[in-house]
């Protein structure tokens, strides 16, 4: 699966609206049922995936890694980081918050921190993200999310070292990737 190179993208969806949608789209029996039906259909699945690609590309500059971190990154895509960092910013962020590689763009993690903190979700950034599975590029992360296959992308393990802030919302509990995170 080839995909375009990572370039920081500024989300076009407002922070508050994004978190509101998150509550609506959280996995629930209805959505799970729906996603099972979509997955079973040879026609609906690619159509759905294509729709997701278009939507999320427009809103977040999505590159379809298939393992969406947006719910815990203030809805700023970490895969737009030229180093594809999923655990926070590198040390090369400019004094003005600019990306090391594309100084005219803002560092996705600087923006993620601001957006998450603005909604009392700054603590989300303390979560430890596990290494991604590169076989899943191109998959629909919405289907993966509703089917529960995204559980285990991150863990709370480092989430309780201190600081303040409401973690809010549902958190994933890791169970696969047995080596890391799983207990």
């Amino acid at each position, binding site marked *: 699966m080839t995909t375009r190179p990572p370039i920081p993208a500024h989300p076009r969806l407002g922070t508050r609206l994004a978190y509101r949608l998150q509550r609506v789209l959280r996995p629930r029996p209805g959505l799970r049922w729906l996603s099972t039906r979509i997955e079973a259909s040879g026609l609906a699945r690619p159509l759905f995936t294509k729709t997701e690609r278009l939507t999320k590309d427009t809103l977040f500059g999505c590159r379809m890694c298939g393992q969406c971190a947006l719910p815990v990154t203030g809805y700023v895509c970490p895969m737009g980081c*030229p*180093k*594809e*960092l*999923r*655990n*926070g*910013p*590198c*040390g*090369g*962020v*400019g*004094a*003005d*918050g600019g990306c*090391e*590689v594309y100084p005219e763009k803002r*560092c996705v*993690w*600087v923006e993620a*921190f*601001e957006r998450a*903190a603005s909604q009392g979700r*700054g603590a989300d*950034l*303390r979560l*430890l*993200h*596990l*290494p991604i599975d*590169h076989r899943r590029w191109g998959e629909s992360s919405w289907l993966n999310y509703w089917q529960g296959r995204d559980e285990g992308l991150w863990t709370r*393990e*480092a989430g309780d*070292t*201190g*600081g303040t802030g409401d973690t809010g919302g549902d958190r994933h509990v890791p169970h696969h990737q*047995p*080596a*890391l995170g799983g207990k």
Partner: protein
Amino acid sequence: MSLRDRLTAGSFAVTAEISPPRGASTDPVTATAALLRDWVDAVNVTDNQGSNVRLASWAGSLAALHAGLEPVMQMTCRDRNRIALQSDLLGASALGIRNILVMTGDHPKFGDHPEAKPVFDLDSVQLLWTLRHMRDQGAVLTGRTLKPPPDCFLGAVENPAAPPAEFRAERLGKKIAAGAQFVQTQFVFDVAAFAEWMAQVRDLGLHEQCYILPGVGAVRSRNALDYMRDKVPGVYVPDDVYRRLRAVPADQTAAEGARLAAETIQQLSAIEGVAGVHLLVAGNEQAVPGILDSAGVRAEDHGR
């Protein structure tokens, strides 16, 4: 005494960074190691620093070890995927290299092969976690057993001066949770800003979970000063420091830079939670004895 033992004993530790040569010889590393041996506790060997091809970090580390100076092998996520990185830890451990410093690494764009594929299969937090897992669980990431498992003392880097400032201490917390036992920072030119970061670090109790060694640089020339201020990602030279180093005649910049470094070391060592300093002096290693001498950190203090 090893770096790990020195830090554990609570003595002030000094590390320094060296760049392996661009060439197929370890002689320059051996020579530098001989110069620094009586002054520093360990020497960091960079991993294709600035995304420029140089002698491999493990080879430079081995040369330092043979020259009687404990190495800190730097490992970036830029050039190798999770298979190669795990393999490198096994190799390093087998050869007696114990200290591993994990970092993201500069983007290839800044080096001598800007057209190279940036790997970044793992990020620095994930790599720390992976290496700790190999050591403590005796298995690779996907579960296969390692016989024997590697031994290592794991380090991380942090840049307290980089945005978002409010998140930098928590970022260190993530690295500690992932396995970091010591941390070396990017250049500290702004001691007040570093002290603020350290206050956040202490509030989170992180200075009790990890040894913190701020980075101190010695500016050699006006060109180096300008380059550092304008070209090196993540390095911030405050105006007063810049003015101070520009105020002296050009041929005295190096001396003033060394004085500034010595003063910085003294100021940093007074901050609660600072376990030592990391000298970022690659290419300027001969300045180390003078700087440590004027800072009052002498070889005798190292129990030699």
